[in-house]
């Protein structure tokens, strides 16, 4: 019997719990439960978010491709999100603004809250309210919400390029991106950064004399 194995029901929920635990574990291990570390991405001092995300995307992409190629995973039974170009671009941009302001995303905010960060809990509350309010307003946003539907559209079919070639392309881009990310981080280390990337900061934050006056917000 080829994968996916479960459909719905109690065993699927059991899998949800286990998968969630592993997800949260990996996020925290990488330090993504810390907003201070996360925002380093946007100030180019700590590109952990990029490294973790794209390592994960490449790994899962290769895993899905190869398990499909070997006939062990039936890709047509794996849920691929539908494409709605305009709302996903606009929603993405909106999400990005919120992400920069909050310093955490919905998933990492749960990790942050779980590890005691009050700002994480505030983000959780904010996401809930935002989803609630937008859901209530959604009937009035239908023209945007339902615009430009493309059904299940993947890069290989949209670009007219074979699946395996797109896979190679993404791997190449990611590896090149990692090289660039390492260089950017090393350049930033010459100036004053937001703290040691590898060590979590456990002191109460105090004004850093090197920063006042030298850097403008």
């Amino acid at each position, binding site marked *: 019997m080829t994968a996916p194995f479960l459909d719905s029901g109690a065993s699927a929920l059991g899998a949800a719990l286990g998968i969630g635990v592993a997800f949260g574990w990996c996020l925290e291990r990488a330090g993504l439960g810390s907003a201070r570390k996360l925002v380093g991405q946007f100030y180019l001092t700590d590109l952990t978010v990029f490294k973790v995300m794209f390592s994960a995307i490449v790994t899962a992409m290769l895993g899905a491709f190869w398990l499909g190629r070997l006939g062990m995973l039936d*890709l047509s039974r794996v849920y691929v999100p539908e494409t709605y170009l305009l709302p996903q671009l606009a929603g993405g941009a909106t999400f990005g603004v919120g992400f920069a302001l909050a310093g955490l995303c919905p998933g990492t905010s749960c990790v942050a809250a779980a590890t005691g960060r009050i700002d994480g809990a505030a983000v959780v509350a904010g996401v809930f309210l935002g989803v609630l309010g937008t859901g209530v307003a959604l009937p009035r946003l239908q023209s945007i919400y339902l615009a430009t539907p493309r059904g299940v559209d993947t890069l290989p079919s949209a670009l007219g390029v074979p699946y395996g070639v797109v896979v190679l392309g993404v791997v190449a881009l990611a590896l090149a991106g990692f090289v660039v990310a390492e260089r950017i981080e090393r350049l930033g280390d010459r100036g004053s950064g937001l703290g040691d990337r590898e060590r979590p900061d456990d002191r109460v934050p105090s004004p850093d004399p090197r920063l006042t006056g030298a850097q403008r917000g």
Partner: protein
Amino acid sequence: MPNVVRRLLAAGAGALGVLAAVAGRPSPRVAALDVAGLAGEIERETDHVTALELAAWIRDRKPGLRVLDVRTDSAFAAYHVPSAEHAPLSSIASMKPADDETLVLYSEGGAHAAQAWVLLRSLGFRRVYFLRGGLLDWMEDVMSPAPGAPPEAAALSRYFGGVPRVGARPNESATADSTVARARRRGC
């Protein structure tokens, strides 16, 4: 220490990526669904044919016509439209389009055939239709058309060995297999 691990991971990813580019398509393929286009065709009713239209196509030996029965083995064996091939739903995923073929899908009541129509369209098939009303309509409209039917219905019916219900002879039963349910039910 971490550098060794990183290089190994990068090398592994690179190798798997290069192999992926030459490995060919994973099976089965991910189909692209043109939701807006298909919805338009369904609305304009260019997605199906009636039983009489199908009967005319078969009688006139329309070039490239293939009639596909998507029901189970036993149902197909009990009765199928003359010239139909058996193509159960499980075989749909591995079908490949051919430019010169016109496919007509049918099932018991039409639902499974309509679903298979969507699937084949998403796999890139162009000339594919389904029989609206399915085998039930075939039985009623072709094998034993009622008195109010179009005039060519009677001729078509006799061509397929059916018995048109002409005048006041309600007792005459169709020659088709009686296991095909006459009553309209939610068949697939």
